[in-house]
């Protein structure tokens, strides 16, 4: 889909502000600030300086709509005279379709993991992707979203995407359990497969096998309505062996929840799969439903109201927007990983639950808090990132980069551009644990045709490289380029450096255009473009 930006801006203004502006004023943003500031005082640190509007606008666009702003969008914000213009911008962006797409990108990766082209294709075809987008578009309560994914039983054709979280894992019930735990509960349980977690003792082996048991009667089925995950009323009883060799039955239980009662047949007793164990599905063509459904039990007895679901979500949102969770790593919220701000985490989780799991409210509060808008330059003498005393740089995700490169050179973007696929293969991380860069990524950006071809083919009259060549002086040309790509004016030595480089080719020549392409490559691959800072 081609986006013409000026029109899009007008559209966003109407949708966003009118609906949500009043909400921002009532947010207890100050509460977050107090928790964070308290810790600064305790640690006796002076936080980094607040950033200017010109840096804020880039950071916020990347975080909320997954791309850099166009020069026009940036100018519009800078020219806005309202004292609460940041609140207005937050609401404008949260109400936009770009926000929906960006958050669907993030959560697709966090819930499903990166996949092959085929995986992405399937996720679209079977409407997982559109269902996820709809959830963010409607700002649906997160606990409902979680429960629908875990139940995987669409109540209407619009909801058929809900099955895909389980379906893509192809009847591998351990894989399902190992995905459910971090995705929704913020804990990793792989270690507990063979014994109680070695370090975090509260995560026991019975929790691992209990979680498996909730899903091990599920089976992928192709129905006339499409792929579904049907469930059997019998079977799924097994024993797991401890390291010592002793066997234990896999009861229906999970971390932080009681055992769900279920009659357990004796080892030699054969269960019969009788029709009276099922009820017909409400919708025609859907698989029949067992009267005692383990998935349903998991949703109603474990997931419903489980304290970790809200905690895990607020912690993850914090990590997305601030580069690090209050518990770090964000998906290991166990006893070996203490929160840096325990009271803040409690408060956020409580507020999230009280608000009806309102995702946009949470995002608004975080991005309007004081420490979100701090400089990313680490103050001398502070080295603990968990203080949130400076803004942590985050590498752009593959999608953010693919979209931002297009915005930079074309002024608009397509969500089906080949850059998405190409960058996803090499820069796969959303919320990477470390921000180190491998030489493979540097080789890719240097030599792979993906980026080089994209730059070379960005040669239509409306594109940046042809446009700047129409400008009169080298200073104007370089200024237009740096403002568009970095969102700031160039320094004198930068003008000199670039102008000197392009001047070695005749104006108007093919060689001159190529020089500009090389300049653009150098800027797009420099750290200032690569990171959200």
């Amino acid at each position, binding site marked *: 889909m081609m986006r013409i930006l000026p029109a899009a801006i007008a559209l966003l203004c109407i949708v966003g502000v009118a609906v949500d502006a009043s909400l921002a004023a009532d947010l207890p943003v100050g509460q977050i600030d107090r928790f964070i500031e308290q810790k600064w005082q305790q640690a006796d640190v002076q936080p980094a300086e607040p950033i200017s509007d010109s840096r804020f606008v880039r950071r916020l666009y990347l975080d909320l709509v997954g791309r850099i702003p166009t020069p026009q969008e940036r100018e519009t914000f800078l020219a806005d005279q309202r004292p609460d213009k940041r609140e207005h911008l937050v609401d404008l962006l949260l109400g936009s379709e770009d926000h929906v797409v960006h958050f669907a990108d993030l959560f697709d990766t966090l819930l499903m993991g990166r996949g092959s082209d085929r995986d992405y294709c399937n996720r679209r075809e079977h409407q997982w992707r559109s269902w996820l987008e709809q959830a963010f578009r409607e700002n649906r309560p997160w606990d409902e979203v979680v429960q629908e994914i875990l139940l995987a039983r669409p109540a209407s054709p619009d909801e058929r995407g809900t099955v895909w979280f389980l379906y893509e894992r192809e009847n591998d019930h351990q894989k399902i359990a190992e995905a459910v735990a971090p995705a929704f509960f913020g804990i990793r349980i792989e270690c507990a497969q063979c014994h109680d977690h*070695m370090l975090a003792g509260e995560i026991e082996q019975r929790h691992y096998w209990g979680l498996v048991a909730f899903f091990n009667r599920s089976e992928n089925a192709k129905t006339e309505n499409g792929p579904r995950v049907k469930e059997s009323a019998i079977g799924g009883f097994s024993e797991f062996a401890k390291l010592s060799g002793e066997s234990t039955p896999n009861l229906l239980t999970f971390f932080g929840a009681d055992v769900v009662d279920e009659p357990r047949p004796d080892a030699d007793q054969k269960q019969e799969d009788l029709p009276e164990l099922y009820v017909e599905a409400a919708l025609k063509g859907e698989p029949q439903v067992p009267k005692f459904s383990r998935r349903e039990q998991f949703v109603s007895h474990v997931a419903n109201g489980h304290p970790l679901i809200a905690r895990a979500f607020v912690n993850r949102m914090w990590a997305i927007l601030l580069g690090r969770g209050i518990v770090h790593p964000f998906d290991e919220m166990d006893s070996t990983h203490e929160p840096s701000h325990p009271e803040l985490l409690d408060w956020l989780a409580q507020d999230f639950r009280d608000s009806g799991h309102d995702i946009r409210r949470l995002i608004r509060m975080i991005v309007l808090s004081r420490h979100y808008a701090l400089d990313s330059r680490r103050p001398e003498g502070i080295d603990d990132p968990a203080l949130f005393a400076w803004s942590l*740089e985050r590498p752009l995700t593959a999608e953010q980069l693919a979209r931002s490169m297009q915005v930079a050179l074309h002024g608009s973007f397509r969500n089906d551009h080949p850059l998405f696929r190409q960058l996803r293969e090499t820069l796969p991380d959303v919320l990477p644990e470390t921000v180190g860069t491998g030489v*493979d990524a540097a080789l890719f950006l240097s*030599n792979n045709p993906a980026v080089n071809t994209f730059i070379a083919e960005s040669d239509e009259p409306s594109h940046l490289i042809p446009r700047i060549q129409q400008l009169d002086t080298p200073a104007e040309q370089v200024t237009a380029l740096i403002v568009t790509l970095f969102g700031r004016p160039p320094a004198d030595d930068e003008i000199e450096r670039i102008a000197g480089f392009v001047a070695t080719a005749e104006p108007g020549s093919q060689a001159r255009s190529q020089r500009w392409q*090389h300049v653009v490559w150098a800027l797009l691959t420099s*750290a200032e473009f690569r990171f959200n800072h």
Partner: protein
Amino acid sequence: MSSHQTPAAGSQTCGSSEHTLHRRLFLQGSMAAGCASVASYAGLFSIPALAEQTRREGRKCILLWLCGAPSQFETWDPKPGTATGGPFSAIDTTLPGIHVSQLMPRCATIMDKLAVIRSMKTEPSEHFQAIDLMTRGEKPRPPFTRPLLGSVVAEQLGQLDSPVPQFVLLDPCPEGNEFKAFKAGNWAGWLGAEYGPVRAGGEYSIPDILRPETISETDHSDREALRRFFSRKYENEQRSEAAASYNAAFERVKGLMSCAPLFDLEQLPEADRQRYGPGAFAQHALQARHLIENGSTFVMVANGMPWDNHVFQHEMHQMLVPELDNVLYQLVTDLEERGLLDDTLVIAMGEFGRTPWLNEARGRDHYPKAWSMAMAGGGIRGGVVHGATDELGKDVSDDPVDNRSLFATIFTALGISPDESYDLPDLPTFFRVEGDATPLADLLV
């Protein structure tokens, strides 16, 4: 994956035209001669200028990383005829009275060159923790991450300004359960990202190592200089570690591109490739030898996590052990023939051993309590078998060796002090090997 030419097909395989010329002449010369010896082949496929520049007196190391953890019973510590010993018999070796599994006939003939520890005793029994332990030498002590063995060796013995990567990880398999999770972690720890490995594998070459045909060599280098100007400026102004790591990665691009031929397995002699055998593990072991010969300091060869045989252990090991047997044999004898064994340490180990008993799926599960590993060359004395296990292999009966004494031994053999200390701000002192562990004297030359 992107498609890319093999370096052999490109007209400019190396950064300098002088080199290209040199290589062509060499090719013509050798073809005229008709039958080049193994020794001249080695010269043929190296990059003369680079090799001379980077070859140093210091020791080097190849780690055959047997990820997933092999069984000691089917390799170095057979217990034939016992309840736990499994179906395979034991065979004589060149060391009187020392037996290995019948699955290792080739290594049996070079036991006088190998040092085997049969009394490894470590703690973690889960892959992730154990892989971490046995590749770094120590359990985690947050918040700082201890560098991998390869990173330490590359930093201590390598030549960082060399274009040839000093620490290479050859691992064709992007998957591998806990190994995958481990690979996503922080490799070089407190040494910094520049000491992390260059990762290759898969198609045996490094993706995107060749310059695009549409960009001239001068332009390629000019635009990188411009990139560096902007990116370094940002790094300095922001005091950004993330940008420092990012820029460090780009600094390595040019050097790596100049040694593209080193990563092209197709250029190695067919006879060598046959000898090592098919399969990624074997071919990468050969490539490891080639990299060491041409200036790399540490090469880690892995292959996903094939050794974790919880199911059908004997059938799986019947395939895996003979491959390991041949690869280790070829590698050690090759290095010796080339006069490189004395200065190249070869280590073959996984993260723990396997249980003496079988589970219901006829698999052996994780067992850190008593297991085996092997080394050769590079400061390690051959013909030594250290420690022993009891009759059924349930526990160590003599001279238990933990991760610390093993790492103290490895470092000492390589000429690196195990006692070095690191003082990091506001933290207790870290030592290269913690706990005053002493190296195993009987294993050292």
